[in-house]
């Protein structure tokens, strides 16, 4: 695998840029072994931001992508898709969190920028060891089970059944209906519960 990493530093409006000098982080990234391209941009997750990634993959013949931005728990899938749209395997991308775990928890610009740099260094080191991964598939048994036959279970079962699939309701009492059958009229309309 060739080492051609592109680093994309997100400013997240001012969420990151107010604390972290993103231009300096991008400049620093260019000095890291394997990195051939680095840029900072206002919103990496936006359409133009993703286009930036797609185009850079093609124009710079990138093999690996690092996105320094918010938490991967937020946008990992977004950037995997953007990486795949650029022609790479989606798993050749690493995200590094410089928002929730950096710009939002530190005040000092210098310290936060230094930390962002070392985080990017960490992500670059990791991504150079990423391997393309293939998604495999398994068959689906298209039959559902609803555990509990109260109003929630009945409603869910009816919706799935109307969608054309088999549903089994498992109810521990000898009748479905649940607590609802014990209720008289219900608020706010005062219609009957059964």
């Amino acid at each position, binding site marked *: 695998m060739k080492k051609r990493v592109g680093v994309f530093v997100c400013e997240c409006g001012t969420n990151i840029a107010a604390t972290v000098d993103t231009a300096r982080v991008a400049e620093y990234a260019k000095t890291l072994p394997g990195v051939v391209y680095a840029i900072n941009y206002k919103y990496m997750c936006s359409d133009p931001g993703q286009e930036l990634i797609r185009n850079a993959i093609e124009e710079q013949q990138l093999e690996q992508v690092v996105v320094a931005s918010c938490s991967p728990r937020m946008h990992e899938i977004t950037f995997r898709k953007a990486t795949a749209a650029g022609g790479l395997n989606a798993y050749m991308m690493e995200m590094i*969190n410089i928002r*929730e775990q*950096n710009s*939002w*928890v*530190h005040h*000092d610009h210098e310290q*936060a920028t230094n*930390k962002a740099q070392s985080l990017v260094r960490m992500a670059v080191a990791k991504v150079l060891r990423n391997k393309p991964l293939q998604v495999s598939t398994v068959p689906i048994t298209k039959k559902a089970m609803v555990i509990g036959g109260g109003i929630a279970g009945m409603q869910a079962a009816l919706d799935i059944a109307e969608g054309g699939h088999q549903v089994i309701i498992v109810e521990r009492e000898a009748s479905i209906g649940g607590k609802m059958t014990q209720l008289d009229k219900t608020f706010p309309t005062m219609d009957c519960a059964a």
Partner: protein
Amino acid sequence: MSIDSQAGWEPKIIVFACNWCSYAAADLAGLNHLEYSADVRIIRTPCSGRMDPMLVLRAFNRGVDGVLLSG
């Protein structure tokens, strides 16, 4: 020995954080803008079960001052 007596000392702390709890909690700390020391570096792991003692030893071997496993 207190930390204050060594002004300017910047310790290196590595946190191995489980993606599903501690990493998410660190995100939550960010969401609430709870400030902490910038010396901390969080490495995401899929689960604290992934933690190999080898990684901790490696970190100390490379000069890290503290390791926190959280999961």
